[in-house]
């Protein structure tokens, strides 16, 4: 039984919802608009909205700076690398907890979650000193490991909730047919869990891409990703709004698109299954 809604009321709520949504989105929209202005147009007073000479020169300028591409690639390497490494470690762990649960499984899950609550700043110096000792500072490998570790609890937790929805009998049947543990996981479990794994991967790439504490503190040049590149704009010299906007737009675009595709699954991952 659907509630009768008058068109008038629907129109009013639609206008209100769109108005607020556009207000919330406005800073991003303004940044994208600014990225197509010249530096002079970007600071005009009063500001110009849509009717200006649209130019893509900022994007060209940012791309031309030989290092932009490297920052971008470092973001890709760290996000993809940490996600891949995380999956390799998390899939067996989630398999164990979902299909061979013990008395301690719940405590173990909670403990993994608790590692995520350690404030990064409290352990920054020890990690920094260890990184110097092991020559990991400003290396891809060092960052991949750290980003993997801070997101590992979320990966394990998400995979665990997805695996639990797969009936254990199917795995058991495969084992009866003589499948080894390795082929049981690779050829029976994983194909069935593809949607769950896909959303886990997506969320993890988003989190890794946007991670700004460790990526800024543990890198200088070689392994520095976009977070570091954008923060370097915090001490401005001269006119730079349009170029900052272009660099920022390029830095957020891939993640924004991925995020929009994964918004339904995000809730489960972000609340550790507490809200479905």
């Amino acid at each position, binding site marked *: 039984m659907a509630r009768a809604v008058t068109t008038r009321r629907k129109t009013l709520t639609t206008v209100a919802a769109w108005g607020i949504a556009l207000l919330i989105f406005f*800073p991003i929209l303004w940044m994208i608009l600014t990225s197509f202005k010249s530096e002079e147009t970007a600071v005009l007073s009063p500001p110009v909205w849509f009717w200006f000479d649209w130019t893509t020169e900022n994007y060209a300028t940012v791309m031309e700076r030989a290092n932009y591409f490297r920052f971008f690639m470092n973001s890709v390497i760290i996000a993809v690398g940490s996600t891949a490494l995380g999956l390799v470690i998390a899939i067996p762990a989630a398999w164990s907890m979902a299909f061979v649960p013990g008395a301690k499984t719940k405590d173990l899950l909670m403990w993994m979650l608790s590692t995520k609550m350690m404030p990064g700043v409290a352990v920054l110096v020890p990690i920094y000193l260890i990184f110097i000792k092991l020559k990991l500072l400003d290396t891809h490998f060092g960052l991949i490991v750290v980003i993997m570790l801070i997101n590992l609890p979320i990966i394990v937790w998400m995979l665990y909730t997805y695996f639990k929805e797969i009936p254990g009998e199917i795995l058991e049947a495969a084992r009866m047919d003589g499948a080894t543990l390795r082929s049981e996981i690779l050829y029976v479990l994983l194909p069935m869990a593809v949607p769950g794994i896909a959303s886990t991967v997506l969320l993890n790439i988003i989190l890794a891409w946007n991670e700004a504490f460790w990526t800024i503190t543990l890198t200088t040049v070689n392994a520095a990703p976009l977070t570091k590149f954008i923060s370097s704009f915090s001490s401005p010299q001269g006119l730079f709004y349009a170029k900052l906007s272009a660099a920022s737009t390029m830095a957020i675009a891939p993640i924004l698109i991925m995020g929009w595709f994964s918004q339904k699954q995000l809730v489960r991952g972000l609340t550790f299954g507490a809200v479905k």
Partner: protein
Amino acid sequence: MSTQASRSAARVMLSPAVISLLIWMIVPLVLTLWFSFQRYNLMYPERAGFVGFYNYTTFVASPDFIQAIVNTLLLVLGVLAITVIGGILLALLIDQPIWGQGYVRILVIAPFFIMPPVAALVWKNMFMNPTNGLFAEAFKALGLQPFDFLGVAPLISIIIIVAWQWLPFATLILLTALQSLSSEELEAAEMDGAPAHKRFWFIILPHLSRAITVVILIQTIFLLGVLVEILVTTNGGPGTASTTLTFLVYKQSILNSDVGKAAAGGVVAVILANIVAVFLMRAIGKNLDA
């Protein structure tokens, strides 16, 4: 299917995850605890040795500490108030029958995917800048004096920026919880003549309570660690006006190279985060049986 063989296999399969997280947690924490009782400044490596609770007493006794605790509380509570209340209202609005609901959701969620440095710099330069930010232009258009947001009200400005980043998170979670509320219950109440505000207080809000708890706890964990937004906008200033506990610890370690004192501050931060964590774990743990 838990045979002896699969049990031992399970243990082997678990070990990489457990061991790596164990190392990640224990080693830095032990080192932080150790440093917190040492005199250890990277600038003066020759002055070393055990100093007992000296780092703690000087860290806690400094006037910056009280200010930092107050700022941390204001930041966390301010952002929570805006995002939870705003999130409930927004979720209620989006849940109504409207045209283009999917697009509205997409627009509202977007800020959550923006990396912190981008969010902070866009707000700082293009909105809050007193000479040519959009807010200054709006003030000028209204014939008012432009307001130097980050200079005069740095903490409130940072609260606005961080709340903008987290409002989508609260809205998304609350909207998901709202959509699991059966419409029959609401319709029954409506037919019994319950007015809208009573339906909100006695049906909707109790239904949302768990989601609200989860939003508050998860956000608190992240809000206690807010650093980059402060770093690129105010650098903790002017003075210590926007210095939070996290930023104070960061300043001690990176800018003052005082490892000992930073470690003591870090231990304080760990204790604070743990208090929140206990409540969060309870809220999530309860759900694990269900």
